């Protein structure tokens, strides 16, 4: 089966150990997680995981079902790159000398629309948001100036769909049994 990079988004309750519960589902099936971002979601008390992994459609469907099967997971979805608007952030640290002595840097910053976050006596830090290819391209371009540190965040993504499936799901679940909730 053909492998595609899927973005898997998972909404969970805020309990200790959920990250482990989710990652072992990938590990057990020998799927390498390419990137992972976890943060609080817009809904209080609910956390959002954004995971990217390369696998085939059949497997990603099974993985999402297995993730959703975990008790404290509210909902999980999978998307292809076409379904989502996504972004990553990269930071590049370059020695002050290289930064100041090379006029090319200016044109590179301009061309890539990078931001300069910091310049001091020892080093400068650039920032670029974009897709992996964009941030990688800038890294390749800056290599000749000796990049001291390079770091890229995991992917964050929002769906292009006009249906907010999580909110719908929550409303549906609340309607199911609003009076007798088993919460702390």
């Amino acid at each position, binding site marked *: 089966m053909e492998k595609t990079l899927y973005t898997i988004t998972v909404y969970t309750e805020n309990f200790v150990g959920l990250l*482990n519960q989710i990652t*072992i589902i990938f590990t057990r099936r020998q799927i390498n997680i390419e990137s992972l971002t976890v943060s609080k979601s817009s809904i209080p008390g609910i956390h959002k995981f954004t995971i990217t992994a390369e696998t085939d459609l059949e497997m990603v469907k*099974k993985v999402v079902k297995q993730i959703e099967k975990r*008790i404290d997971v509210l909902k999980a979805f999978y998307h292809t790159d076409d379904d989502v608007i996504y972004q990553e952030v990269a930071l590049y640290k370059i020695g002050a000398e290289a930064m100041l002595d090379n006029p090319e840097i200016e044109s590179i910053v301009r061309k890539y629309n990078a931001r300069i976050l910091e310049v001091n006596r020892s080093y400068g830090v650039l920032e670029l948001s974009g897709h992996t290819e964009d941030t990688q391209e800038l890294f390749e371009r800056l290599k000749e100036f000796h990049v001291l540190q390079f770091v890229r965040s995991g992917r964050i993504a929002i769906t292009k769909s006009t249906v907010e499936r999580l909110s719908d799901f929550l409303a549906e679940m609340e309607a199911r049994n609003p009076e007798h909730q088993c919460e702390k």
Partner: protein
Amino acid sequence: MCSLIEENVNTIFGYPGGQIITVFDALYSYRDSFQYILTRHEQGAIHAAQGYARVSGDTGVVIVTSGPGATNVITGLADAMLDSTPLVVITGQVGASLLGSDAFQETDVIGVTQPITKWSYQIRKASEIPWAVARAFYIAREGRPGPVVLDLTKDAQSEMVEFSYKKCIFIRSYQPYPELQPENIAQAAEMINKAKRPMALVGQGVLLGHAEEELKAFLTKADIPAGSTLLGLSALSSDFSLYKGLLGMHGNLGPNKKTAECDVLIAIGMRFDDRVTGDLKKYAKQAKVIHFDIDTSEIDKNVKTSVAVLGNAKETLPAVTELLQPARHTAWIQSFEACEKEEMERVIIPEIMPIAGPITMGEVVNRVSEATNHEAILVTDVGQNQMIAARYFKFSRSRSMITSGGLGTMGFGLPASIGAALGAPERRVCFFTGDGGIQMTLQELGTIMQYKIPVKIIILNNNFLGMVRQWQELFYRERYSSTPMNNPDFPKIAEAYGIAGKKVTKREDLDDAIEEMLKDNKAYLLEVEVEENGMVYPMIPAGTSVDQIILGD
């Protein structure tokens, strides 16, 4: 303790230790409220709780200590997870301030148990106990059942709080029963109505959902023959006219062969385990597949379905039955007879009624089943004893087959039979095991002695790890690596525990020995010396399909 009373727990299995001593101290005050069973090993406690849960349908409860106590229940957790058995296992844990410090008897219980439990949660404050216990029982029991671990820190055990309990009846992130989908129900019914050669596969979901009667009505109305998975056994009584036998690697010829001939395959509460399907590329390719299951993640996991009917079989089966047109598939059903006849002549008669030679495993199982009027609960260990017992024991009542199916845990049987006897005190429990499996949890004879558990233990002794030996004979050029066993005198061991016993080596002594074993309601150990090179047939070798079945004659 109050939380456990709220959940109507009356039997607890366990083993005390340093980090759970406070709970056991409380248990002492409540010793009139619970029947407490001290096993001889934590693994024994959890397998006993599994046996208890499987016969009674209630959630099994286990209390053990931290560290080694907790790691000793791991096998049982994995087993209960695969076989969908509801358990609440409470493990002691070091005090919250010591967590992560490699304290004495500290293990990362949550980390270790997450992959093999339905839910595991660490309780660090006494105030969380009622909430967590309520949630644990709800999760273990509702939907597709499974094991839950509560890791209880020492300080949470000793803290004092005002007790107030609220039963859990809803968790917003967990939907135990998928909503019925009328469309799929209609589609399934239509497909069955059009079928010329329908066949049903019955799994444990029917037993877990208490849907035995609903299943019968469904099969009868549309005249559908049915095979059973190992864990689905006893959902239909053995003499039910549409019941055609056991599925899978060592199952009956009819249901296995007909899986490859039917036009509509109806799976009910089963998960297409590889021991049932063999090579998936060749499995039931000609058939449309209807899959009834409560667990969404089972749909399309192994076998692609045409229609999925999600929900509890107790509700989905009648919903489909209502839309069925009464049908007769007489010729199709009669076509099973040729397989039955062939299997009877080539496999069954030689196995259960041999004329000469050493005693066979099949004849022992058959005679015990007959002597108990096919009414007993069958508990097995794992291996040849399990397959032969599953093939030749007959069932007239539901929830009568307790065995480790998914995990295949040797040593499961003896403690599980203790739990089964406690979970169904009015019924007789016959436990078949091998000389290997009984020795894995032999210490539980002590539990049988202490609590006078009336289990009938039948050891089919071939002085070999028989199932591995069978594979070695068939597929490993008869290189019997690590399978021959020098065994102790089993009845003498039983005698040391005050359990009556006997060893039988001759066919003519077998009936009398069985009669003696069954004459009263006390524990008994019957060791039967069976043929060393006994084989379980038919056999569909692993990873192949029914066309490569070996009949062994």
